[in-house]
């Protein structure tokens, strides 16, 4: 008997708005809410709702013998909050117990490549989100774009994961085939390897009329799977969820295929498993060594589609160079924005690999060229950097809104001509009204009473420093007003 492990990756990024260089320092929202909404509503209608209905039916009709598993990114779950019906359609499937949820990084990021500390935080964020929404804790992990190497297996194994999904790449497998459970090197994690040929038959070739096996029927496909009897336990079909209804449109017959496929599997005496069942049912046959990073993308199976060119390298290194300061000084919103910029799709849009051939990866790509993607991204990153610098200044007591508040009673400034000044703003207003006698009484070669008051009573060293050597009334007034404006801007 061969077991089919059907795993579907469900993801939508939160796309960026056309952020111009002139918006830096002015515009606060980075995300194109309207566009994201448009894409999401389309995908819900074309893919999520019809597919989930079929999956749920299949589970009922087969008395729970049909199994499926999902990884649903945090960036998608966040957007689905506005669409309870769609979210519910996933929950219902998870609630049957026939569906495994697979964990990953909340932001669908490539953090595993840049910072294991950041990577772990995003996994924990995802775990919490999955629990909040689905009341489920999972022991299976998949990394963004199926990026895997030994260290990643070790890291997630230390976080308590028992199984991980990876690409069944020939160069790693050598003579072995992906239809067994393997053990990761340097850890005890069990590795489930994607059967990429069969997975791609479904995900990419299904509607390809020039393909010799077109049309692909459920019976034919179940037959190919059954051929692994005697040469494997497990056929891992790892695909993008959007294969159903979006990559392969309804008109291609993909839904009909899905409706019949499980029954054809059972007819041939095979069955379905979730990843958890797979690792419980089968022992690992041997250790598998992934010394280098392997992804599920392109013929190279590497990261070149995300981090291959100069723009991608610049953008990613700039992004991650902010890590320490963002985590130290950033507020929740800033950290969240920074993490949303880590979503791998942003880097994918900058890919130039196929662009010269006019063969852009057009699928839901909001940009005309990879260069446009880069500009938008960098402008946003520049704005984020500005925000970070600002917050740093505040936290380092450079900016403190409290400086604007009235001083304690009894600590007001009493001028020679009998005016009482209780706040910086009042000082700004009053200072320009003084006659020469009053002004030079307080500001002269020996002293600057106003600067001292700003320093000792208000506590604003910045303002005091700016004021202390100034002897001109108009200039001094300007300095105080400017400082008021600066602090009010916060």
């Amino acid at each position, binding site marked *: 008997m061969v077991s089919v492990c059907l795993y579907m990756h469900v993801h939508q990024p939160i796309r960026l708005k056309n952020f*111009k*260089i*002139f918006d830096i320092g002015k515009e606060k929202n980075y995300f194109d809410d309207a566009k994201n909404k448009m894409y999401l509503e389309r995908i819900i209608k074309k893919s999520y709702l019809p597919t989930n209905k079929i999956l749920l039916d299949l589970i009922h009709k087969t008395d729970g013998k049909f199994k499926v598993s999902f990884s649903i990114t945090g960036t998608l779950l966040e957007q689905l909050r506005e669409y309870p019906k769609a979210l519910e359609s996933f929950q219902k499937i998870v609630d049957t117990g026939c569906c495994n949820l697979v964990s990953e990084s909340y932001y669908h990021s490539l953090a595993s490549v840049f910072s294991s500390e950041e990577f772990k935080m995003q996994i924990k964020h995802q775990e919490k989100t999955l629990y909040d929404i689905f009341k489920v804790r999972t022991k299976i992990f998949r990394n963004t774009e199926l990026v895997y190497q030994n260290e990643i297996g070790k890291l997630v194994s230390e976080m308590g994961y028992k199984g991980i999904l990876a690409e069944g790449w020939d160069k790693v497998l050598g003579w072995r085939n992906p239809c067994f459970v393997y053990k990761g090197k340097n850890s005890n994690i069990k590795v489930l390897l994607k059967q990429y040929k069969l997975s791609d038959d479904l995900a990419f070739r299904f509607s390809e009329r020039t393909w010799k096996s077109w049309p692909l029927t459920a019976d034919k496909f179940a037959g190919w799977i059954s051929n692994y009897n005697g040469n494997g336990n497990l056929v891992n079909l790892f695909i993008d969820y959007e294969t159903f209804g979006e990559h392969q449109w309804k008109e291609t017959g993909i839904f009909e295929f899905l409706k019949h496929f499980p029954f054809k599997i059972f007819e041939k005496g095979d069955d379905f498993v979730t990843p958890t069942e797979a690792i419980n049912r089968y022992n690992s046959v041997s250790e598998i060594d992934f010394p280098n990073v392997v992804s599920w993308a392109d013929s190279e199976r590497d990261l070149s589609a995300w981090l291959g*060119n*100069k*723009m991608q*390298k*610049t953008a990613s290194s700039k992004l991650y160079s902010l890590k320490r300061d963002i985590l130290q000084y950033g507020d929740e919103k800033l950290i969240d924005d920074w993490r949303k910029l880590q979503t791998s799709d942003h880097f994918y849009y900058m890919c*130039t690999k196929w*662009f*010269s051939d*006019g063969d852009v990866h057009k699928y839901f790509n909001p940009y*005309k*060229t*990879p*260069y*446009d993607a*880069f*500009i938008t991204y*960098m*402008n946003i990153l520049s704005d984020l950097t500005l925000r970070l610098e600002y917050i740093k200044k505040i936290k380092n007591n450079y900016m403190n809104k409290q400086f604007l508040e009235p001083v304690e009673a009894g600590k007001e400034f009493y001028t020679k001509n009998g005016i009482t000044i209780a706040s910086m703003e009042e000082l700004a207003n009053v200072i320009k009204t003084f006659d020469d006698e009053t002004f030079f009484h307080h500001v002269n070669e020996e002293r600057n009473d106003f600067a001292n008051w700003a320093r000792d009573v208000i506590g604003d060293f910045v303002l005091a420093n700016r004021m202390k050597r100034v002897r001109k009334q108009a200039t001094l007034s300007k300095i105080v007003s400017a400082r008021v404006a600066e602090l009010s801007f916060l």
Partner: protein
Amino acid sequence: MVPTKVLMFGWEFPPYSVGGLGKVTYYLSNALTKLGTKISLIVPIKGESDKLKILPTNLITIKSINTMLSPYLTEKSYQYLLSEEEAKIYGGNLKEEISRFTERGVELAKEEDFDVIHCHDWMTFTAGIKTKEFSGKPLILHVHTTEFDRSCGGCNPYVYNIEAEGFSKADKIIAVSNYTKNKIIENYDVDENKIEVVHNAIEFNGGANNNKIHQRKKVVLYFGRISMHKGPDYFIRAAKKVTEYDKNIVFVMAGGGELLPEMVNLACDLGIGDKLLFTGRLKDEEVKNIYNSADLYVMPSVSEPFGITVLEAASNRIPAIVSNNSGVKEVLNNCFTADFWDTDEIANKVLSILKYSSIKEEMVDNAYKELKNISWDNRAVKINNIYNSVSNL
């Protein structure tokens, strides 16, 4: 296949050139002769014609017609150029000058032996039609611009009629881009099967130009005639927005044209007289220098049938922002596109490209790879096939 003999009504050869048409005639003829095609070329020349002696091969014979015509003339600019002395020799207005050219052209054509007639742009169309009438040979009209591109809407009916008559009498029309093909179909009611697209190209030997002048200020370049359809005013308005944001960026408007004085005034009115430099018309050597000093090329044309200068910029490792209304973007993917009127977006791109240096590095490398497939040699093959197809009609 018997080599074709072509009678071509072309335009001035370098170094006596004012724009793309001369280059096209030169490089295309050169590439065609490599295929064994013989070309009898008839070109208008003003004054002495000794500048034509730099022939690439003996498969080309040249006859010149002494005329005031240059390919981008309008009635207004014709009058502007015509001096009193010249009025005695040349036609008193553009119309007269064209009939003079046509008459002389047909006379010269009668002395030639050819299989196909190939004309470049409207001023030569009537000569082509008349030549077809007496010789019975097929006529190919090569469209580099239409009246709709040049006039920005204010179309001259006299020119339009010549173009329309030409298109209806031609056996084949060659458009320099799909953009132009569509314009011909829309505006002249021509059957689309009659039109073939052959994009312009560039003489590119792959040699990297590394002697960039290092300078403190970044230079953004406009290079082309300063005419309305090239959108020079949009360039200046974008320059205004850019220089307000970053004062270390300088704009250079290279080229001559009837709108030059107006543009100088506009720049001064906007208060960027010191940020925007005008060069006037450039010689070949100066063109090289201007490319060497530029960091970015902008072509904000209102309507640009092709835009060879973008390829030249790319071959000089300069990234480009190109108008959406242009043909060149059909062959060069690795450039920016923008709407010519969207000066905010142009300014945004100018600033971003100059700020984030990895764009330039990535773009010029990828554009370079594309240029290798954009050669006159493979354009000549396409055109030669068109010659063969019409001579077998």
